[in-house]
């Protein structure tokens, strides 16, 4: 009975796995899960349709649950293109020799992190972070995801740089909300008193009327740094034909569907290169996230 069972199982799983490998020539991409999933799925399904039309191949978007999962899928060649943040892009390109940053949003050249606080703390916004030292000390604080550039790397860098302390020593409680929308909701609800998030998410939610400005406000804006970008694997031409990489780049740079761009939200895409992200790499090494 047991042997029989094994045999049946092996045969049926064989069928299952061969069926899976038959669809290998689909161009698959992913994105870091930095916002509410419904929004991401809607946005990237649109991108998949657009790319599929422009490139004339099947294009599929797969949603993932963490920044690291996006990097791993890219590294493992299960996805060939990804919409990464600054840090995840640097991590991914280090792990996949030959991979390239090909396009970034217009806004990504000078991206920012906003520090936000629940209004019950009474903290007023300031030009310099150092002016807020007294106000912020001992408060509860949330980052976004552990692997986020605007939600973790840059805010942690400035906290260490300006206050000369580890975040967990400076604040009374430090959490990782998971994504920018969650950070906004948690600080708005007062679960955390202070948080740090992607300025584009803040501005878009504000414009859409989704923020109770009586409950939460921006208290500090970081200096600008480079962030999100499209990164592609170096070996796509071998798999999808000569010049495929250029065609993908071209397609992304020419994307002018306003509704789709709005959903990012970006005003358009411009060329990018690996060197643009050197400052991110240095910062990550400095605070010990990268070896």
């Amino acid at each position, binding site marked *: 009975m*047991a042997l029989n069972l094994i045999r049946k199982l092996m045969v049926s799983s064989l069928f299952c796995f061969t069926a899976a490998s038959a669809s290998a020539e689909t161009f698959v991409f992913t994105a870091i899960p930095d916002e509410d999933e419904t929004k991401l799925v809607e946005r990237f399904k649109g991108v998949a349709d657009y790319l599929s039309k422009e490139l004339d191949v099947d294009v599929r978007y797969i949603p993932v649950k963490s920044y690291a*999962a996006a990097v*791993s899928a890219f590294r493992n060649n299960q996805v060939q293109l990804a919409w990464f943040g600054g840090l995840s892009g640097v991590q991914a390109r280090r*792990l996949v020799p030959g991979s390239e940053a090909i396009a970034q949003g217009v806004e990504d050249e000078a991206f920012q992190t906003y520090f936000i606080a629940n209004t019950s703390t009474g903290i007023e916004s300031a030009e310099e972070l150092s002016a807020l030292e007294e106000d912020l000390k001992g408060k*509860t604080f949330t980052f976004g995801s552990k692997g986020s550039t605007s939600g973790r790397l840059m805010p942690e860098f400035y906290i260490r740089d300006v206050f000369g302390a580890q975040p967990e020593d400076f604040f009374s409680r430090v959490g990782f909300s998971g*994504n920018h929308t969650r950070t906004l909701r948690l600080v708005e*609800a007062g*679960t955390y008193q202070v948080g740090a998030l992607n300025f584009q998410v803040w501005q878009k939610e504000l414009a859409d009327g989704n923020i109770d400005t009586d409950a939460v406000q921006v208290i500090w804006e970081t200096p600008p740094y480079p962030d999100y970008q499209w990164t592609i694997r170096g070996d796509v031409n071998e798999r999808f034909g000569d010049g495929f990489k250029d065609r993908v780049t071209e397609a992304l740079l020419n994307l002018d569907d306003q509704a789709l761009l709005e959903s990012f939200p970006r005003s358009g895409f411009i060329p990018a290169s690996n060197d643009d992200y050197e400052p991110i790499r240095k910062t990550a090494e400095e605070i010990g996230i990268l*070896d």
Partner: protein
Amino acid sequence: MLSSPTVRTSLIFVAVALIGLLFADIAITASNPWRDLGNFFLGVVTPNFFSSEGLMTALLRTVAFAFVGVALGSVCGFLLSLVYRFLPVRVFCAVIRAIHELFWALIFLQFFGFHPLTGVLAIAIPYSGIFAKVYSEILDETDPEPGRLLPPGTGTIAAFLYTRIPDCWVQLRTYTAYRLECGLRSSAILGFVGLPTLGFYLESSFSQGLYSDAGAMLILFYVLIATMPLWVKPKLLPVYILGAPFFLGEGLPIVWGNVERFFTEDIVPSPLRNGEGLAGLIPWLNDLMINEAMPGIWNTVILTQIALVATGILTSLAFPLISNHFGGPVRRTSGHVFLVIARSTPEYILAYILLQLWGPSMLPAVVALALHNGGIIGHLIGRQTNGIRLRPDAPTGFNRYSWELVPRVYRSFLAFLFYRWEIIMRETAILGILGIYTLGFYVDSAIQNIRFDRAMVLILITALLNIGVDILGRYIRRKLALQTMPTC
């Protein structure tokens, strides 16, 4: 009363938990937790079954992963149980079952990626270890007498199949069916790390505050588990097991080069990989131990001890709910519903829900662990009290509870608690992924930073801690002469 060793042991554990409370981070940090909790229950009573077209597929995948994983696990576990008397096999099984399904999934995700094999192995591997242990315990209890009556020259396999198996067939079957239920829970939570099961959608809708969608998923999950006796029939099993592999979804193709890279590069400690040799390894390990392993172990142990005692308290409050000795049928029915819900909800999902509602601290974890485990033990003890016959003039109400029933079931109560001690610790470690600073938090951080060498060391430390608690739990059970049949 203090002279009784069971009471003394209990008091020691309560004292340890109380001291743990002094160090534990227990707080409700949400500014309006009751409103959120209210919204959540409102969502559960107004479920939205049509939120996502993926919901039914997710449910199907949850069942498929459970069937394939548990079937594979039980076959491997059975084979291992035949050689379980050898020490290396026992050690091997102890290690693979000490690593939680979610940790296995996180490991396989790094090289198999989003392929069905990741989910199947994440369930099958730890379950093999558990099955091996329990099957061998069941086989050991069989009566050796029929075997002695066989004529000389009877083949070993024939003798085994005709004398040992029939004697314990019912126990094997009951236990395997029980594990299938556990498998459904494991399968559901695999979605939290990205596999296409129920947890995937549950996490999405919960984190966006779509409580009606989340409520619908929870209700479907309870219905699935509660109706198991109706749809899991022995005759249908071959159909399910043969069919299940076809419903795991396609995932993405495996690239085999990744497997080799993972084992030969990724998990090699970075100083060795960079050629710094042993001189670099010592500071690396030191840093890992002091900054991550030690705080992780400390928090894991504290949380486990508090959760264990909380489980005991909840159990003693919950078992009368379903006991024939108290209340009428209405109370008992609602008691049953409460306990079924408590024990059908995986701790991970309970903790996730409570963390969303109350904010981060150890409190949601303690409550989640106590509810789930208290639900399981409360159910078992409650059923046991139903077998107790009291004198017609026995006291009623609180006196009946404290002087008649509790003393009679106290030993099995403790036995179950110590049996689940290790399970509670394994879950405590994993809850770190949700942001409580137990070992799982540091494992997750290492993985998020793409440092699998660190993650593997931390996972091994977690496994050793579990094995240690398992040994201690067994020692105490033996010392107090407590016996129990295996549960989950």
